[in-house]
């Protein structure tokens, strides 16, 4: 990692690196656990047992995280929910990023009429009653998980586009862009080689802000009954179930919420670390 300023950088760099590594490992651990745990556990995600409902967590008794109100093992369900949440986060973010960055960069770079029209379109989309949009999609396309990812990502790209556009506008005023243009580099080459890498920093930070948004949006959809359907579950769905049973069975909230919080915290610190690595300053000509 290049440093461009004085002595302080290396010390921070090491610390940053350590934290990044810890978070990366934590996320990997959760991911691996979510897969291994669901396979290894004797309980299934959907096995109902009325005699064992609302049991508290007990290490010896078999149900490590306890059971829910239908007697289903919470450990397995939390892990399964983690899997789905990971999936949602990745896919929806990809969709959101691809659309948003492309759109925002083009709008910001070309400016003028193109920018005006594109941003007016964004304004128009913002004002859409997104609930109807989602209801409609869910109904017409019969609630497939894939479609939900796409729907969430498609709703989310608007913020990314705005931010990217803003940054692109600032960036294109910079000296190196003018220099490239003078030399005769094509517009798209400029976008791809000069603007995009410099966007990476803020985009990465924005990604780590978007993922929680996406995950929370999914839990809001679950809350409305439009999210992940039984027997699938997500951390968002588990958390929203857990809230209403907060006093009766606190473990139903505690475990999924902890997993969720840890995941999001790690994603955030990871984002920070990545930002350091991709800092455009160090790649400056």
């Amino acid at each position, binding site marked *: 990692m290049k440093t461009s300023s004085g002595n302080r950088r290396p010390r921070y760099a090491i610390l940053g690196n350590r934290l990044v590594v810890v978070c990366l490992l934590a996320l990997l651990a959760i991911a691996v656990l979510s897969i291994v745990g669901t396979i290894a556990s004797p309980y299934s995600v959907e096995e109902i047992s009325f005699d064992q409902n609302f049991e508290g967590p007990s290490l010896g008794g078999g149900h490590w995280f306890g059971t829910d*109100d239908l007697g289903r093992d919470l450990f397995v369900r939390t892990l399964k929910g983690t899997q789905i949440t990971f999936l949602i986060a990745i896919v929806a973010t990809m969709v959101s990023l691809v659309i948003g960055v492309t759109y925002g960069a083009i709008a910001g770079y070309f400016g003028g009429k193109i920018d005006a029209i594109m941003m007016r379109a964004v304004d128009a989309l913002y004002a859409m009653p997104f609930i109807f949009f989602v209801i409609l999609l869910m109904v017409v396309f019969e609630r497939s998980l894939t479609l939900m990812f796409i729907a969430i990502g498609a709703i989310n790209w608007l913020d990314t586009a705005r931010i990217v556009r803003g940054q692109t506008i600032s960036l294109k005023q910079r000296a190196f862009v003018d220099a490239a243009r003078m030399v005769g580099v094509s517009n798209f080459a400029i976008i791809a080689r000069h603007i995009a890498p410099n966007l990476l920093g803020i985009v990465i930070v924005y990604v780590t802000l978007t993922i929680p948004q996406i995950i929370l949006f999914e839990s809001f959809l679950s809350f409305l*009954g439009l999210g992940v359907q039984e027997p699938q579950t997500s951390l968002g769905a588990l958390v929203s179930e857990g*809230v*209403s*049973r907060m006093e009766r069975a606190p473990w139903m909230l505690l475990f999924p919420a902890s997993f969720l919080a840890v995941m999001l915290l790690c994603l955030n610190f990871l984002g920070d670390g990545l930002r350091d690595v991709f800092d455009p300053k160090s790649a400056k000509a």
Partner: protein
Amino acid sequence: MQHFRANLTHSLKRFAAAFLACAILISGCGGGDNGEFANVLNRSLGPEPETLDVHAALSTQAATVLRDLGEGLTAYSASGELVAAAAERWEVSDDGLEYKFWLRPEARWSNGESVTAEHFVYSFRRLVNPKTAAPYAQHLIDIENAEAIVKKGGPVDSLGVNAESDFELTIRLARSVPYFLKLLAHNSTYPVFPPSVEEHGPAFARAGNLISNGAYKLDDRTMGAVISLSRNEHYWNNANTAIDRVRHFIAPDETAEVNRFRAGELDITETVSTQMFAKLREEMPDALRVAPFLQVYYYGLNLTKPPFKGNRKLRQALSMAIDRETIVDKVIGRGEQAAYGWMPPGVNNYDAMTFTYSTQSKADRHATARRLYLESGYSLRNPLQVEIRYNTSQTHKNIALAVQAMWRDVLGVETTLINEEFRVLLANMLAREVTQVFRSSWSGDYNDASSFLDIMKSGNPSNLTGFSDEDYDSLLERAATQMDPLFRQVYLEEAETRLLEEHPVIPIYFYVSKHLVSSRVIGWQDNVLDYHYSQHLSLKTND
């Protein structure tokens, strides 16, 4: 420039401080006057009522508020007995076709004017007028010429309701209706003040416009927050109204509602969530009021399409495979009762019927279920694949999961659960194209067996199953024309038996009404319609 930028932060800070100061000032005034009147009842309604127009209102929330605002010819007492209200007495002809009501001369609207028979005539006409498009027009459908008016647009003043004098009202029916007086206690038959409706149109139901003839008048309505009522001093029975002001709060979230009760902001809650129930039973057992309620939770079966079309044995097998006791005890657990029949207990002049297998042991039931399943054409190698549709709710989901497990364990049925948003489900249920098993419920608008049995008649719009049985229909016809109450009861019970044999629906449990009622409130009596008029209640004064 620098100077300006420095000032920017400075001015931002000052702006923020000023805003905060304004905020505190604004929030200080216009606040509620919770502490000022000790004689205020704080009740929760649950979700927002759609309207306070008696003729347009459909929801139970609206009905609760309307019962405080208005009064019909008859009403219910606190214990659930039918009593005289706006009418002080009445006479019914021997053939049951002519009703004569003598109204109370001292009855007044909230603006001081007299409540006259002409007002009732106007209101009933408005109810059946197709232009009003009242959902409960069918309550008066048995009045002479009502059907012609509703269905063919006949002249509204041909309705068989007449004001003989200021305080004498006669109603002629096209056919005898044994429970007609009960219909007149329902809020859809409450009168409206004609000059107000003529002047304001639909806006007559707004705060500031609404003139009411009940114990309270409408002060204010803030959508999403609260509907405030205060005492109608002109009400004929005002002397017996103890509470000065009633605030009906909107509380769409059940957990939040309970917390508001615990924090002392509510005296009465509309419901008690399943999740909190067990804890509250420990924490405040005296506040918990649970009582049987006239509503049934059922799984309807679409009889117009396979797999249920013409396959009674399959339908019965599925019904027998469900362990209702477990659902009621483990999945919900608020004291609901397992439903082995269609009619909830507590209906006047009626003994509810039950399935033939209601007393069988679980093992026997399951054995019979498996036999019927095989006979209906399915087996473990050729399992039934079926969909259960339900609308969004934790409880519906848990019950569906339980039923799914039970059908799988006992019969090997492969069930898919489909959660749909309410109106989507409704549209599907009405179309009868894609539904197979769907969750629904039915509650009685009035306390008579017909309120539950009529909807399963062929052609009844609320018959979501498509059930159409000649015997059933003719039994109901005979009951409708039967003057003798005992014979009528027999016909109705036979009809229910027939219904249960055919299994177009799988009743799961009978509802209970559940409320948290604070110890401040005196006079709360459980009743099977769950009507709790504020005028019957009073508050304990603190010393």
